[in-house]
């Protein structure tokens, strides 16, 4: 329970929250309401006039096979990114947790990727897997596999998943490590005395005890994959080939700014907004309550 603080004057508390409110209004409430309004309009091809059409944009969206396909693709993409980055981060954290010498250096190195901007991370992977000059393409070629994500949709998807997951590993690692280190040492020792080997201790003690963190990261990673991977996709595939890597956020951009269907694009962003809101609700509802110790 938070302590209540009483202010003497009546304007001070308002003044203190004003900057936050202002930022929220300017950067969230206003654009969001614009998007909401826009989603109910249809513009003509030249952007000279618009017509109020109620929910026609939404009705059209849900009848659109491409849109539903993008939805499925996004879900596949998000869960792959979340799973891959979390599994990798968990492995690294489990190992880092046991390191004693040079632990800080080791940890610092593992945190670096988080400081890399999504676009830059995308650019890195583009270079490594470039069909003509990428080092990995070359290596795969030597092993007898011809890599070309510019033609092969599956490979393109794989590449954006790996690039996005790589970026997220550092973040997940930090949280997993913090969670593992908050488990009292004596619990692990008690399990060791009880006869559990390292693997058994990990699966029967550590994993259940960090489950609140796992759930939290699950939500955060899905949100990341849903919304913040735009930069990576834009740098790596531009949603191609043949829309094979076009996820929801990328479609909003593509339809709105390339295809100039502002109303339809706004409607898509409203749907995305609803998804974020529900994920946040899940986050607050369950994660904050389900802490074991």
């Amino acid at each position, binding site marked *: 329970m938070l302590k209540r603080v009483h202010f003497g004057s009546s304007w001070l508390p308002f003044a203190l929250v004003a900057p936050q409110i202002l930022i929220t209004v300017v950067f969230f409430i206003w654009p969001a309401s614009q998007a909401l309004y826009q989603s109910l309009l249809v513009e003509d091809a030249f952007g000279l006039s618009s017509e109020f059409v109620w929910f026609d944009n939404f009705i059209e969206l849900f009848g659109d096979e491409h849109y539903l396909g993008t939805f499925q693709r996004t879900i596949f993409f998000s869960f792959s990114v979340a799973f891959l980055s979390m599994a990798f981060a968990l492995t690294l954290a489990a190992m880092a947790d046991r390191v004693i010498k040079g632990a800080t250096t080791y940890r610092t190195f593992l945190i670096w990727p988080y400081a890399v901007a999504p676009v830059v991370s995308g650019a890195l992977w583009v270079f490594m897997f470039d069909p003509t000059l990428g080092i990995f393409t070359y290596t795969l070629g030597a092993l007898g596999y011809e890599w070309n994500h510019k033609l092969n949709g599956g490979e393109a998807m794989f590449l954006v998943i790996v690039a996005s997951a790589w970026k997220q590993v550092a973040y997940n690692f930090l949280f997993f490590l913090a969670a593992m280190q908050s488990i009292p040492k004596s619990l692990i*020792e008690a399990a060791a005395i009880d006869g559990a080997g390292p693997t058994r201790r990990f699966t029967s003690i550590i994993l259940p005890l960090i489950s609140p963190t796992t759930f939290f990261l699950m939500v955060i990673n899905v949100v990341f994959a849903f919304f913040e991977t735009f930069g990576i996709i834009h740098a790596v595939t531009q949603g191609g080939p043949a829309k094979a890597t076009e996820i929801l956020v990328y479609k909003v951009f593509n339809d709105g700014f390339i295809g100039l269907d502002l109303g339809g694009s706004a409607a898509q962003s409203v749907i995305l907004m609803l998804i974020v809101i529900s994920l946040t609700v899940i986050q607050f509802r369950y994660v904050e309550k389900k802490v074991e110790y």
Partner: protein
Amino acid sequence: MAEIHLRQVGKSYGEVEVLQGIDWKIGDGEFVVIVGPSGCGKSTLLRMIAGLESITQGEISIGDRVVNDLEPAERDIAMVFQNYALYPHMSVYNNMAYGLKIRGIPKDEIERRVKQTAEILEIGDYLTRAPRQLSGGQRQRVAMGRAIVREPSVFLFDEPLSNLDAKLRVQMRLEIKKLQQRLGITSVYVTHDQVEAMTLGHRLMVLNGGHVEQLGTPIELYERPLTKFVAGFIGSPSMNFLEAKMSEDGSKAHFTGGNSLELPAHLSGHGDRRVSVGMRPEHLLLDENGSNTASATVHVVEHLGADTLVHGTFGNDDGPELVVRLDGIKTIGQDEVLTLSIDPNNIHLFDPDSGKRLNT
């Protein structure tokens, strides 16, 4: 069932030596207590026996096996931790069954043993609860249960009572003692509390700064402390140490504040030197007709009911500080001058510099 044998055991972290030259043979079924102030290395020693800390010097054997290179799981021990270390995501039942499951014991056998242990510890009603739903004392019992159910050959206790309130601590102390008597399993108990040490242990090891100050039964430690440290550590309130000068023939000690006391007969030969005279508060008696008397000036009186603690100075106001424990309720006023007597055999003499005992 096993004896534990420590041979020249030591521990160092790089250059820093935290334990050195510990030699001790703990008999089968014995209950021993390692006691000392915080930072003396007592927990480290216990953890070395458990296998949670590596042994950098010497050798530890449990039963007839040298365990230096064995994993904790292979040492056939069970440990009760200070914070209980119960698995928070498991029910009480699963907490107790965990070690048995790992050992691949059949389900019905596990159930029988857990139920039986729970009955001994009177936690049968809580088996389905999670540890966080239990009180401190109940958690303590579960932690004990988890150790007992495995039927190990050695029990290790790492300050198991220090998180409990005073009343519960006394109760659990008694239960641990009864339990150990009943099960007869070799036990090593670490504590900083001298009352726990005295009441629980068949034998004690007093550790200070990484080395053994004294080994012995509680009574030996109380009656014949070999160092000033042990003398001050065992007993409550702790022993009075008064600086004094011995007479030339070694028969008397002269104190600042004007008092002189007769010393134990066998102390001649140490004449004309400074000594630290140790007298337990309970050995100073209010007896004007006693043979070996001295005066004390009263400053503060504390009434505890069963006894009365008198804080004051030995002799006049310039004398050294002194605590006297008198039986029952005594009406004593501030600044009153008391006549105290002490049996010379209850006087301990220590070298003021080395802290070693002088009277053998």
